[in-house]
């Protein structure tokens, strides 16, 4: 069992415990509890009032904190998976193409050749460092809002421009990259993304034309992601 699944199971258990606790706490009249009556939980002996106070503390403070923590982990780590992106149907063309062994887009080639082992979407679409992570997540939240409110139209387009750093973080300093004279002479323009790597190195995903509803490729690209 991988960490992500473990965290999710744990999160679900904690949430369930939290709900049960809250339900109990909600039904309990705290002023009628006796401080003399002892309850025996496992090997510890607690007064009835202490037990319920502790329960309330757990239900109101500890469990929600744990739930928030786990939810955050789930949100911030889980959304990095390809499966997370695949949940929105507008992303299906990208995912289908990514996993299509016949496809020769940059995404598909990076996937099928295992150049990026996991979280393939996130790996290329989050910029470097904490700020990059933050931006990617903010962008993800924006996508979510757009998607749930249906304020988007197909074919979707990347806003702004793709950050070359995502290419350079692996390719720069590699002999194959460095040997190209144009890479050397354009280093500054590549570094600040004012000239996109994609200009020369092709199509990253199915084109907008292919992703336009009604196009010849549309139905195939929109097949349900397994």
């Amino acid at each position: 069992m991988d960490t992500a699944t473990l965290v999710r199971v744990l999160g679900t258990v904690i949430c369930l415990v939290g709900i049960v606790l809250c339900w109990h706490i909600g039904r309990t009249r705290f002023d009628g509890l006796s401080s003399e009556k002892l309850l025996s939980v496992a090997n510890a002996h607690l007064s009835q009032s202490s037990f319920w106070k502790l329960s309330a503390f757990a239900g109101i403070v500890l469990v929600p904190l744990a739930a928030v923590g786990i939810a955050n982990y789930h949100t911030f780590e889980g959304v990095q998976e390809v499966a997370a992106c695949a949940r929105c149907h507008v992303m299906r063309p990208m995912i289908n193409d990514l996993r299509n062994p016949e496809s020769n887009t940059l995404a598909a080639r990076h996937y099928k050749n295992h150049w990026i082992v996991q979280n393939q979407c996130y790996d290329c679409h989050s910029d470097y460092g904490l700020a990059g992570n933050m931006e990617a997540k903010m962008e993800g939240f924006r996508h979510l809002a757009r998607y749930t409110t249906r304020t988007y139209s197909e074919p979707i387009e990347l806003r702004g421009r793709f950050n070359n750093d995502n290419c350079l973080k692996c390719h720069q300093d590699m002999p194959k990259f460095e040997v190209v004279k144009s890479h050397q002479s354009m280093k500054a323009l590549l570094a600040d993304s004012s000239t996109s790597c994609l200009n020369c190195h092709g199509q990253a995903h199915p084109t907008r034309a292919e992703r336009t509803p009604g196009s010849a490729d549309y139905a195939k690209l929109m097949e349900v992601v397994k």
Partner: protein
Amino acid sequence: MDTNDQKSESGLGRRDLLKVLGGVAVANGLGASTWAALELLVPSATADTWHKSVCRYCGTGCGVLVGMRDGRVTDVRGDDLAHNKGVICVKGSMLRALPYVKGRLTTPKIRRDGRLVDATWDEAMSHVAQTFKDAIAAGGPDSVAFYGSGQLLTEESYTANKLFKAGIRTNNVDGNPRLCMGSAAAGYTQVYGKDEPPGSYEDIDYADCIFTIGANLFECHPPLFERVQQRRRASKGTRLIVVDPRRTRTAEHADIHLAPVPGTDLLLLNAMAQVICEEGLLDTSFIDKHVRFSDGQNTVDLAAFKAFLEKYKPEAVASELGIAAHQIREVAFLFARSRATTSLWTMGINQRTQGVFLNNMLNGLHLITGHIGRPGATPFSVTGQPNACGGVRDTGALGHLLPAGHVVANEGHRRKVEQLWGVEPGTISDKPGLDAVSLFRAMGDGRVKAALVMCTNPAQSLPAADRYRAAMEKCFLVVAEIVEDSETAQFADVLLPAALWIEKEGVTGQGERRYQLIEKLMDPPGQARSDLDILVDLADRLGHGALINARTPEDIWDEWRQFSVSSMYNFKGMTRARLEKERGLQWPCPSEDHPGTIRRYVAGDDPLVTTTGSAMEFYGQPDKKAVVFLRPYVPSPEHTTEEFPFYLTTGRVLEQWHTSTMTGRIEELARASGDAVIEINDQDAWKLQIAEGDSVEVRSRFGTLQGRARLASSPRRGVVFATFHDTKLLINRVVADHVDPVSKEPEFKVTAVSLRKAVA
């Protein structure tokens, strides 16, 4: 907990409910405002507005998106909706610097006392008009000429052609495409009856065998090479065969690289045909239906074709060709037996004294194996200039041509064109105009006294350059240029500042019969004008204003579109509005609802195919059959001798385009390409005691030149290579100017030279 609150049965009060609802509202509000904030946080963009356009450089004709901010080009990227699917090259990526290069010409100049001095447009144009009138009065219409280019917009070439042929009444209209595409155009016309390739770039996506000969796609057409590579990555069995005397960067990626001795590759094509016949690899049912054999004069049969090929058995030609017989057999087999073979060729085939024969035979190989008219199967001549196909070949802006596939030599064609242009019968001279090389010779011997040169740089691009530079000195040369100091500008008697790329508007037609619109996005610098404005002005001053009745790109396009209706080029359906909206269209395209033609001569795709029940129809030929020619190999006049023991062949480098008038001024590109060098095979260098960086002298029957040596194993032994972009190493001074007898295209690719270490 508030014990005074009234509890309901469930334990929750109204206030609790309000609190919960309030909480939900606050949470929603927070979410919504975060979303709103994120929508406003627009990632930093490089431009405010994006406009679809077309790259200025090569014949691939890539669609680009031009990013503008405050009236300036701030970015250019590949257009993913265009045929190139977003892929461009480093030159295209640096297009944004192009309008702002150093040395832009901003005022007209007139040569006075040997110096070019500033003048007004009126002074310059009256001087031009007067000199043209004087020349015509003294020596007749054929004493003036127009030398254009595949870089002019379609409307410009069309107008120049009309002005000179129907106005001035000379067919002396030629241009750089003669140096570049002449043999391909003649080759297609002889085989199919009509010019222009039958297939499309899209065929690369379906090919199982890609046969590349005389083309260095990696450096000269990078987006096409990327397309080839994408096909190979997606379909691992796809073979790339590269034939080139040099192990070019394209050849480095090939499955099979054959390096023939320069000038001998008709031996290879004929030997491949021989193997195909011998091994039973012919597509006889296709041949029966669609092919006729010809020896150039008479129709012959398949048996005669086979008999003709007997002397080209691989074993018989291997030594002269410089390729092992078993390799020829292997390549012939792969070519014929693949599911779909696409051939790609360019200057290595066209710029040859046997250029037309080579083009004939390449088409022939496809016809005898049936590799044509199916996805992935096509003989494709790749173009060098962005608008050589649409602008020049289609508009007939060459000496022997008239628009839309008509020819000067045919009286019926002349009458038809005269009628379409609304001029008197007999207006168009029956004498074909001078081809490029003859035209510059005529400048030298005084037959042509005044010439207008537009959008090209013949002082650098002509072979045996010294000879024609001297000729240009003698002629009254009007040069419309974008920069002050191009090689040709030095010879100008009047220098006119021209607008460039998105500083003007018009249609370009790239290598696959696709017309695309370039819209005007900015003003030209200073007083610069579009070449069209210059031509219209000249027409008025020469008294032909009434002939040039369409004067805006839009009107001229409409006129030309209507003209095409009566031809096999029919593109009436390509209205200006469609070109504004769509990413280019491929002709034939006869109606506005026609999507354009990807594969020509194919039933169901090409609207001009009329015979029912036939999958293909070569309607350009009277019997509707394509012609396979029996073309004998003739050695190049530039074969090596004891005095000239090496073959010089020229080419390009990835970062520079043509004579580098534009790309050479863009710092990033100039830095990457570096100065031109003389590339020598390291074994030859060892023998000649030449070391890397030495100054070497290259001498041919046409000139002598010195340059820096670079030792490499890429040119085969006995071959010297240089790029022609660099003015500091003007290699065309040395290059031979023999021409193909049919296409009149010079043999840039084969020159016998001697080589030695220069004495310091």
